[in-house]
């Protein structure tokens, strides 16, 4: 199924869910509040059948830019692909978790939270996945500052005497 057909189909089922983007953008943008319904539709609709969530990517565009997550979906049955982007509020925004729909989302959402700091509401086991539990901050954010010490160990390279 082509992207334009997918957009029409989602728009008729959940009106107002898709934020209009440029025609050749190649992805659809969904409002966080509609995401659970849209996800359910994408998975269960006999014409869409996105049974595989391939990846969730968190993106931070810097303190002035946007914060968003990209979901890459694939249908094993109908062999078509789709990218869904969801933009969140930097300060207190969150995205509804789809870990109960696609089990893949469980760890991917935890990773996006761990490194970028996007919060996912309703996740069954929401904690850090890669970094230690006592780590402060989300290191792939553009405004992240490396701490001087972690548990007494110096983190930045000591460059005294280099030049």
């Amino acid at each position, binding site marked *: 199924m082509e992207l334009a057909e997918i957009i029409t189909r989602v728009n008729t089922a959940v009106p107002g869910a898709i934020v209009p983007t440029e025609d050749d953008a190649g992805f659809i943008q969904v409002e966080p509040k509609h995401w659970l319904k849209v996800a359910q539709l994408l998975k269960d609709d006999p014409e869409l059948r996105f049974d595989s969530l391939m990846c969730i990517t968190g993106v931070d565009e810097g303190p002035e830019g946007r914060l968003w997550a990209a979901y890459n979906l694939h249908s094993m049955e109908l062999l078509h692909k789709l990218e869904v982007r969801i933009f969140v509020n930097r300060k207190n925004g969150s995205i509804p978790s789809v870990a109960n729909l696609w089990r893949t989302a469980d760890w991917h959402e935890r990773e996006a939270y761990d490194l970028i700091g996007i919060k996912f509401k309703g996740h069954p086991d929401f904690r850090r996945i890669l970094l230690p539990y006592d780590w402060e901050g989300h*290191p792939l954010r553009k405004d992240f500052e490396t701490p001087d010490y*972690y548990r007494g*160990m110096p*983190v930045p*390279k000591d460059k005294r005497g280099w030049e």
Partner: protein
Amino acid sequence: MDLSLDHRFEKDNILVGKLDDLINWARSNSQWYFQFGLACCAIEMIAAAQPRHDLERFGAMPRASPRQSDVILVSGTVTLTMATRVKRLYYQMADPKYIISMGSCANSGGPYWEHGYHVLKGVDLIIPVDVYVPGCPPRPEALIEGLLELRKKIREETPLRKVS
């Protein structure tokens, strides 16, 4: 008749020497290493232990427990999470203990020296390193060289005397 010690017992199957030398001989020929295979350097360390390079001909043998080993072989990127473990296991080892730092990452942080928020910039920041083996990763021959350097270092020790 010569009555000096090394000639007096010549015919009785008795050797006269320093106890230090005996201890050093034993220590330097059984460097059982505690394998910290943390990244790609681990592949070279494994290759060094396999039949082609055969570390065991030098008495060096991989161990997976701090209680049985004499040398820590830190081969690979020491992340901060792993660093806490390295430190802890170092303190669990019995003396005498030696440390070989293998590869650029363990020596100085390697490619993560500037932007690696998660990497310890050299394992010598937390434990005292005896021998550094440079390379990214070092070839097994380089690791063997490092082990032989450590052996030289051990043979110069005086475990029974304190040097002022």
